[in-house]
C-alpha cells in the first residue's frame, strides 16, 4: 500500500506530470419487488493519469499500490503525441454544500416503509431506495487539490394496472436529491396512483394530434440524452452533433447548472478537479457553446466549461450536470393535446443526426373534461425539428433526473398510431 502523495512524488521524480483521482463510496439500499433485497456497500478506487511530452497514460485499481504508476507509464507508450495532451491547470475549487447527514442503513428502510402503502392502490412492481455518500479527491503534480463529500438519495417506484388478463405498461416515477428534504414521497405516490389509473384503460388515438405536450418527466427522458449528446464538445469538434455552433434552433434556452445543490448531479468541481459554474449552451435557440473537459476545450480553443465526468476506472469524458430548460412562449393544455409522460426506446436514437423514434407507453389527452389514456403511439422526428417546434411551456417546472423543465408544447412531430 502507498498513499496518493507518494504516488505524485514518485511521478515527479520520474519527470512526469500526474493526476490521481480517488473515491471512497458507501451505500445502503433496499429494493422491494416480490422479495426484499437490503444491501450495503463500501468500496474505494483509484485512477491515475500521467502526462509526458504530449502523451498520456492511464491505469486504475481498487487498491492503491506502487505498481499503479508503472502500469500508467506502460500505457503512455501506446499514446500518440498531441499538443493538447497536457495536465489540467492548478485548481483549489470553492465548495458547494452537497452533503447531508444521512444514516445509510436506516434511511432506505424508512423511505421504503413510507412508500409501501402504495400496494393497496396499485399493482406495485418494484420500489428502489438507494442512499450513498462519496468522498472524491483529485490531486495532481500541477497543483490540483480538490476534495468533496457528496451524498445522494435515489427513490424510484414502478407500478402498473393488472387485473383479469389486462396488463398496463409500467408507470415509473422517481425522485433524487442530495438532501432528505429534497425527496417528496407524497408527490411520488400521487403521481403513481394517477398515472396507473390513466393507463388502466387506454384507447387508440382516433386522429393525429396537432399539438404534443411533453411532461417534465418525458422531456427528461427524451430531450435529456439527445441534447446531452448534441452539446458534447467532442461530438461538436468531430462533426457528430446535429447542431451547429452559433446557429438558431427555435427559442429554447438550455443552461447546464452544476450549482443546483438539491440535485445529485451537482458538483463543486468536475472529474478533473476544476471549478464548475453555470453555462448557457443554447441561448434563445442559438447554440452558444458546447460543454468540454480540459482536453476538448483546448481542441475547440474555447474556455473550459469544466464538465469532465469519470469513474475511477476510466479517463475523463464530458457530461452534463443539470440541464435547465426555459422557453419564452407561454402555452396551455388545450383539448385534444396529446400529453406524453413516458417514452421508451430513446437509446435507439441516432445521436449524430438527432433522429429518434420512441414509443409513448404512458400518454393521454383530455376530452370533455375527461382524461383518456392512449395506447401504442410512436413519436418520431429529430432534435432540430423538435427544438424548432417547441411553441411554449406551461405548468410547474420540475426536475426529473438531470433535467428541469415545465410541460413543453411542440408542433410538427410525426405520430404513428
Amino acid at each position, binding site marked *: 500500500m502507498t498513499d496518493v502523495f507518494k504516488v505524485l512524488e514518485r511521478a515527479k521524480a520520474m519527470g512526469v506530470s500526474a493526476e490521481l483521482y480517488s473515491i471512497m463510496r458507501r451505500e445502503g439500499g433496499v429494493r422491494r419487488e*416480490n422479495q426484499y433485497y437490503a444491501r450495503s456497500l463500501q*468500496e474505494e478506487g483509484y485512477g491515475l493519469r500521467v502526462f509526458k511530452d504530449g502523451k498520456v497514460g492511464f491505469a486504475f485499481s481498487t487498491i492503491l499500490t506502487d505498481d*499503479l504508476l508503472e502500469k500508467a507509464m506502460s500505457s503512455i507508450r501506446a499514446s500518440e503525441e498531441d499538443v493538447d495532451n497536457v495536465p489540467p491547470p492548478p485548481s483549489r475549487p470553492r465548495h458547494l454544500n452537497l452533503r447531508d447527514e444521512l444514516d445509510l442503513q436506516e434511511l432506505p428502510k424508512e423511505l421504503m416503509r413510507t412508500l409501501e402503502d402504495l400496494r393497496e392502490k396499485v399493482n406495485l412492481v418494484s420500489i428502489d431506495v438507494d442512499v450513498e455518500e462519496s468522498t472524491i479527491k483529485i490531486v495532481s503534480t500541477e497543483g490540483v487539490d480538490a476534495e468533496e463529500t457528496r451524498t445522494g438519495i435515489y427513490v424510484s417506484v414502478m407500478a402498473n394496472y393488472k387485473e383479469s388478463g389486462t396488463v398496463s405498461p409500467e408507470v415509473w416515477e422517481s425522485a433524487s436529491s442530495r438532501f432528505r428534504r429534497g425527496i417528496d414521497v407524497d408527490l411520488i405516490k400521487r403521481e403513481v396512483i394517477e398515472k396507473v389509473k390513466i393507463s388502466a384503460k387506454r384507447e387508440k388515438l382516433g386522429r393525429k394530434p396537432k399539438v404534443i405536450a411533453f411532461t417534465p418527466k418525458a422531456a427528461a427522458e427524451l430531450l435529456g440524452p439527445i441534447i446531452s449528446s448534441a452539446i458534447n464538445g467532442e461530438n461538436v469538434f468531430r462533426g457528430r452533433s446535429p447542431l451547429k455552433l452559433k446557429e438558431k434552433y427555435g427559442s429554447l434556452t438550455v443552461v447546464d447548472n452544476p450549482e443546483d445543490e438539491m440535485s445529485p448531479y451537482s458538483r463543486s468541481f468536475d472529474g478533473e478537479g476544476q471549478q464548475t459554474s453555470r453555462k448557457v449552451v443554447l441561448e434563445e435557440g442559438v447554440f452558444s457553446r458546447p460543454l468540454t473537459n480540459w482536453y476538448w476545450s483546448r481542441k475547440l480553443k474555447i474556455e473550459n466549461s469544466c464538465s469532465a465526468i469519470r469513474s475511477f476506472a476510466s479517463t475523463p469524458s464530458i457530461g452534463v450536470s443539470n440541464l435547465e430548460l426555459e422557453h419564452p412562449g407561454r402555452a396551455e393544455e388545450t383539448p385534444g393535446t396529446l400529453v406524453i409522460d413516458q417514452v*421508451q426506446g430513446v437509446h435507439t436514437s441516432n445521436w449524430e443526426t438527432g433522429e429518434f423514434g420512441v414509443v409513448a407507453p404512458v400518454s393521454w389527452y383530455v376530452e370533455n373534461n375527461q382524461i383518456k389514456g392512449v395506447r401504442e403511439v410512436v413519436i418520431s422526428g429529430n432534435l432540430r425539428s423538435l427544438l424548432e417546434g417547441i411553441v411554449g411551456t406551461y405548468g410547474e417546472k420540475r426536475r426529473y433526473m438531470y433535467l428541469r423543465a415545465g410541460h413543453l408544447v411542440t408542433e410538427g412531430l*410525426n405520430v404513428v398510431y
Partner: protein
Amino acid sequence: MLELLKRAEGLGAIFADLRTYDVDETSVYVTETTKQVTSLGREAGSSLRVLVNGNWGYYSFSKSTGDEAERAVNSAYGDERINIVFLPPKRDRVKVLPKKEVNKSVEEIMRDAEKIKEAVMRSHPSVKSVNVRIFISKINKGYFSTEEREIEMSYSISGVSIRATAREGEVTASASASLSTHLGYPLEVFDVNQTVEVVRKRLENQLKGRPPRGGDADVVLAPDVVGVFSHEALGHLAEADLAVNGILGELRGKKIAEDFVTVVDSGVLDHPMAHGFTPYDDEGVESREVKIVDRGLVSEMLVDRFYSAYLGERPTGNGRAEDFRSPLLIRMRNTYMKPGSWSKEELLKDVKSGYLLVSPLGGQTSPDGTFQFGIQEGYVIENGEIQGTLRNTAISGYTIETLGKITAVSKDFDVWPGHCGKGGQSVPVSTGGPYIRVKVKVG
C-alpha cells in the same frame, strides 16, 4: 472465504454465500482525431449475502474490514418471507482456454485499433468520423456458499466495436458493428475486414436509402433482428421478477404462436460470439436451457433461487450481477429463436410489398408486451425482390400479437454479441435466431 460464511452462520444466517470478483480490464479507443487507453487496471471485490430471519442482507466490499459478516447481517431487512431453493454441495472449476492465449501489449492493441480505423476511413469517401474500441476482460469469479458449493470460473471476453458516420449533403448515416468472444483475441478469432465491410455497406445503404412508409407492413427479419426481438421483446417478459407483474406470466401454458416458434435462453451456446457465457450463474446455480416459448406454447420463466421457489420451477441459472458491487438480478444469457425448415429465399418470395430488416440498433420492451427498436440496415422488398435500401427505420408492436403473426421460420441461424441493461447494471449477452416472416408496425 469459508470463515466469513461460518461467521455469518454464527450470527444467525440460515444461508450465506460469497461472490468474489477479480477482473483485469484493458480498453483502447481510437477515433479519427484521438488515440486513448481508456481503461487499464484491476478491479477486485467481494459480496457477502446472508439470509437471516427470513430476510436478505448484503455487504459488498473492495477491501476487507474484518466485520463483513456483521455488516451483512445488520443490513438485513424485509417481511421475513424469503424462501429460496437450496442446492447440494458441489466443487467445480471452469477454465475456458482460448484458442490462443490473449497476451497482447497495450501498444499492440492500439496498433490494431488504429489499423481498423484506417480501414473504415478508407472504405467510403463520405466517412467523416469513426470510433474503434478494443477491449479485453480477464475474469476470475468465485462462488462459495454455506451449502458447501465452491465454484471457480476463469475466462476472458474480448471484443472490438466499430461505429462510423458518413455524410453526403443533408443526409447523415451512422452504422455500427461489434464482435466479441471468449475464444481469444477478436482479431485472431474473426476476420475483422468482413466487419469493416459490413459497416461500409450499412453507411452506403443509409446514404442512398429512404425512410419507410409508416404503418403495418410485411417484413422478413434477419437473424440479428430476430435475436434482439427474442431478447428485448420476449426474453425480458420472461424474467420472473417482471413476468409476475407482466403479460407473459398470465399466459403460461397458453398457445401464442405456431408450432415452428421456439425461443430459448441458455447459459452455454456453441458459437464463437455467444458471450453470454454463464455455465454457473452468480448464485452458484448450474445453467440449463430455458424454453420460454416451446413450439408456440408459453412455457418457462427465467428464475433465480428465490423465484425458483416462488414459482415452483426448476432452477435455471439466471441470477447474475455485473460486478461485486451490484446486487443479483434475473438476467438473460444467450437468447435465441430456434431455426425452422424454410429457406431465406422462400420467405422473401412471398412478400409482395414489405421490408427485409437486417440489423437492429438497440431496443426496449415493457411488461405489458410493447416493444420498440431501431433498424440500421434494411431493404425494401417489392414482389419478392430487394429493390432499395432504408434509413431512419424503427419497428414496434405488441410482442404476443407479433409472435402470433410469424408465418415462417428459416433454417439459417446466427448469433450476435451485446450488452443488456437492467436496473443500472450491464451484463454481456448474446442473441440469435433464423430469418422469420412476420407483420409489424414500421415507422
